[in-house]
C-alpha cells in the first residue's frame, strides 16, 4: 500500500484526500447534529468522521499520521467524549430525578417541543439528545481512528 519509505500513496491521492477531508468532516458533523431529526446520529456520523481519518492514514501512511495525531491523542479525545456522556447522565441526578433523565426538555437549550405529527424539523429540540449524540460522535471518531492507526502501525513494525 506504500513505497519503501512507508510514507503513503502518490501525490495525486494525497492532494485529493486532503482536499476531501474537511468536507467529509462537515458531513459527519451534519449527521451527528441532526441525529434527532433525520436518520443518523452519533454512531453513524462518528463512523463517517473516522473513515475520513482512515482515508488520511491510507493516503499519507501511518507514521505520518501518527506524527500529526498519535494514538494516545486520539484515544484521549475518545476518553473526553465518554466523560461528557457520563457527566451529562449524572446531571440527571441534580437537575431532575434520575440518572440519564432528559432534563433539558422544556428549557431554552435544545428544549423546544415540536408540533405533534409531521413537521420540517426544528434543530433546537431533543433535550440532551443532541449533546449525547455529539459526545458519542467524538468518541467514535477518536476510537475507531485510533484502532485503525494502531493496527496500521503494528503491521508496519514487521518489516
Amino acid at each position, binding site marked *: 500500500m506504500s513505497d519503501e519509505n512507508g510514507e503513503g500513496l502518490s501525490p495525486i491521492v494525497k492532494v485529493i484526500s486532503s482536499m476531501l477531508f474537511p468536507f467529509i468532516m462537515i458531513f459527519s458533523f451534519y449527521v451527528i447534529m441532526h441525529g*434527532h431529526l433525520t436518520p443518523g446520529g452519533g454512531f453513524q456520523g462518528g463512523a463517517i468522521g473516522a473513515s475520513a481519518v482512515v482515508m488520511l492514514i491510507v493516503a499519507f501512511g501511518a507514521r505520518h499520521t501518527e506524527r500529526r495525531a498519535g494514538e494516545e491523542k486520539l484515544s484521549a479525545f475518545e476518553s473526553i467524549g465518554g466523560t461528557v456522556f457520563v457527566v451529562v447522565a449524572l446531571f440527571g441526578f441534580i437537575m431532575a430525578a434520575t440518572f*440519564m433523565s432528559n432534563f433539558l426538555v422544556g428549557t431554552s437549550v*435544545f428544549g423546544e417541543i415540536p408540533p*405533534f405529527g409531521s413537521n420540517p424539523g426544528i434543530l433546537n429540540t*431533543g*433535550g440532551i439528545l443532541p449533546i449525547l449524540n455529539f459526545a458519542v460522535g467524538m468518541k467514535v471518531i477518536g476510537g*475507531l481512528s*485510533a*484502532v485503525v492507526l*494502531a493496527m496500521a502501525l503494528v503491521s508496519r513494525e514487521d518489516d
Partner: protein
Amino acid sequence: MRKIAAIVFVAFFAFLLLAAYDMHDFGAPPSAMDDYVIENTQNETGANNAVTAVVFDYRGYDTLGEATVLFTAIAGVMVVLRRRGKNE
C-alpha cells in the same frame, strides 16, 4: 471431533429452523411497547426521530453500555497492540 461438531451443527440448524417456523407472521409484530414510543416521542423527548429517542432517551442506559463496549474494545486493542520498547 469433527463428527461431533457436525452433529451439533446440524442439530443447531434444525433447532433454528423450528424457531423460524414458529415465529409470528412477518410484517405483523405485537407492538404494545413500540406504539407507546411512537406516540410519545415528540412530547416526552422533543425529538422527531423515534429511533434516536429510543437510543438516547428510553434506552439511553443501553447506549451508555454500548459506548462503554466500544471504549473497552479500543482500550483492549491498545493493550494488545502496545509497543513494549519504551518500558515505563
